[in-house]
């Protein structure tokens, strides 16, 4: 049975200190509200997993919530650096961060293996790169049929995967539209899948060939409108490109970052409060 809980209750119940967690969504449907709730509840020692850490992991890392990061591209998309990630790697602030670094193709293969409950993913990858020299988890295997040497990556099976989606029905089926990234694979790879949704509906229409996570793989659903902002939800609200640009300034400086987080995340009780804290004051 899928649990229906408010987001704060879902995080309290399902995410422990030290957990490995994947908040997926490739530029689209990034579960920001859930990430902020992890920060409010002061989770520590997390192993964060995401192809593109994006602003949400920049925030978690800057708040000292992470021990380790599995990732494949750590920039601010279309803007430049993730300054909190850089500060952690370059200067150990606010604490050192272990890196488990991959390419997109490698991480995609690791999620696929995780979803299939296989021990490793295989790909014709990591060719001509220094990455395997720095990450010993990237190995190789000889094909038993052709003898070709192929790269392998250990399966990713997060303790908890958290996704954001447009809709769930009352049974816990979850429908995703638009760019899906590796959401489906990350969801199926998890020991527990939590989903925040824009809307809960009585019934979803039949979804031939579209991306649907059936209720029996969904552990928990939380209603959380706007939960992907400043990323976006196709058909609901657009990506706030301007905020991604402003984040570059906010995150560049430790004090400014900490003040922003204190005011907008720690200083609010939930995602509605977070969004309200950012609205221009109307006289």
């Amino acid at each position, binding site marked *: 049975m899928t649990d229906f809980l408010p987001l704060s209750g879902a995080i309290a119940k399902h995410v422990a200190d030290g957990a490995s967690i994947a908040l997926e969504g*490739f*530029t*689209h449907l990034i579960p920001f509200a859930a990430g902020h709730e992890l920060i409010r509840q002061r989770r520590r020692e997390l192993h964060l997993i995401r*192809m*593109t850490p994006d602003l949400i992991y920049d925030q978690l890392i800057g708040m000292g919530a992470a021990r380790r990061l599995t990732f*494949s*591209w*750590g*920039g601010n*998309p*279309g803007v430049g*650096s*993730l300054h909190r*990630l*850089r500060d952690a*790697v*370059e200067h150990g602030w606010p604490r050192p961060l272990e890196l488990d*670094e*991959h*390419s*997109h*193709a490698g991480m*995609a*293969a690791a*999620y*696929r293996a995780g979803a299939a409950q296989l021990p490793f993913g295989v*790909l*014709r*990858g*990591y*060719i*001509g*790169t*220094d*990455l395997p020299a*720095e990450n010993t988890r990237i190995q190789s295997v000889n094909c038993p049929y052709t003898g070709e*040497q*192929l790269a392998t990556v250990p399966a990713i099976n997060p303790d908890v995967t958290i996704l954001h989606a447009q809709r769930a029905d009352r049974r816990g089926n979850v429908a995703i539209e638009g*760019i*899906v*990234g*590796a959401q*489906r*694979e990350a969801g199926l790879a998890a020991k527990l899948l939590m989903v925040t949704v824009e809307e809960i509906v009585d019934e979803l229409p039949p979804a031939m060939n579209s*991306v649907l996570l059936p209720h029996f793989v969904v552990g928990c659903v939380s209603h959380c*409108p*706007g939960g992907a*902002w400043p990323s*976006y*939800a*196709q058909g609901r*609200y*657009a*990506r*706030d*490109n301007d905020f*991604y640009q402003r984040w570059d300034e906010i995150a560049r400086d430790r004090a400014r970052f900490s003040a922003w987080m204190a005011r907008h995340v720690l200083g609010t009780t939930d995602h509605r409060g977070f*969004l309200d804290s*950012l*609205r221009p004051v109307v006289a």
Partner: protein
Amino acid sequence: MSGYSRDEMMTVAAARMLWDDCVTFVGIGLPSAACNLARLTHAPGLVLIYESGTINTRPTVLPLSIGDGELAETAACVVPLPEIFSDYLQAGRVDVGFLGAAQIDRHGNLNSTVIGPYSRPRTRLPGAGGATEIAAHAKQVFIVMKASPRSFVAALDFRTSGGHFAGRAASGARGGGPSVVVTDVGILKPQAASGELALAVLYPGIPVEEARAAVGWPLALRPEIEVIAPPTAAELEALRALEARTAAAHRQPVRLPT
């Protein structure tokens, strides 16, 4: 035609090398502008694939991020990201992959990972993303980078993506590696035997010395260096209109969700 910027010359030069029905794997920034310019001018059948999973997308404005909604809304289809990398790129279905980086060496190897040692970097860069497998498996790679001795270096700090490295032929890479490096002064192409990059094309009005000074190793020269034609009025008009549409679209305020 006078009165164009070097960025515009670079974009036009990259666009001209694309052909109708070419399947391209596109990144954000100048490559995205070049591919869309080609699609809007001489190559209407150009197929754009962005790594976010959008296939044959026809955006009216340039995306700011690789996963903008515009790319999904104007795509023939949107597929999961693992499928893009395994079933399209690794399977050898991409004609041209675009790459840029912080550093390039004389064999077209690229670094987008770290400046300084990996374990204690002076500058931590974003990392590989799709680049490593694009470099291996796209049939050709177009590298697009502004030339300067800081980025065109004798030795990389880290090799993120392989160019014409020793052993490439037996490495399992499906593609042919970098076929051109489009810079802001001209175009470098690999020598057939060694794979070393040599100056093959200059932009109008740029002397060979300027190109050599912009590269941090003794730059080889092709026996005959072509001087490319400047952007035509039609090319500039299409590019500027695309950029004006993009700027207008990105100025639209985004309302916070309620």
